[in-house]
């Protein structure tokens, strides 16, 4: 299945991209995606837990199972206002 991963703020800087299209096995969770990002980027190494997680523009549990076509984003600490 295909999932689109969006990067914002510090994660965009670290990933060097706005989005990435992922091809994932059925049953993959948001937490699993975070683990691969951690493995890939030394700057994320200390972040064992994923930040707040959004699926299709709504907050979701990091253990949510992803579905084909989902839009996934990790939300670094927000600082609006």
């Amino acid at each position: 299945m295909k999932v689109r991963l969006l990067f914002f703020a510090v994660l965009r800087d670290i990933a060097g991209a706005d989005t990435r299209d992922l091809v994932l096995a059925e049953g993959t969770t948001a937490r699993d995606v975070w683990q691969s990002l951690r493995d890939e980027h030394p700057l994320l190494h200390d972040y064992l837990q994923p930040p707040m997680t959004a699926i299709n523009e709504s907050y979701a549990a990091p253990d949510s199972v992803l579905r084909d076509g989902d839009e996934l984003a990790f939300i670094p600490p927000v600082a609006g206002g």
Partner: protein
Amino acid sequence: MFLTDAPLDPRALVARVMRASDGAYVLFEGVVRNHHHGKAVTSIFYDAYRPMAEKELARIVRDVETEFPETAVAVQHRLGQLDVGESSIAIVAASPHRAEAFAACRALIDRIKETVPIWKKERGPDGEEWVGWQGRS
């Protein structure tokens, strides 16, 4: 639309919510200041997950208007590069009574800061930094 790339217009926001039955309004503006945690700041870049931020802002406005049924509120948040003295957010709460106007305005800004996916990168003579990321692990 709660997000804008243009300078905010608080007077228009006030005009949008005021009704003849309102005896008071409270306007809050967040402004880029020249310091943060002891470091000089010259500008702030605001980034957002725009469609999700719009939805979260709409949800918070709905929640606050439900909790303060006599009070009407409006919010605008600016994105992009802002210099010191420029406003990043404007919130208006208009009500027949002042206590509710203060409480609703305060509730809005507090909740917006908690959950709306907006981020800021502070820029100063010492470099730049995404606020809130350092020290989190």
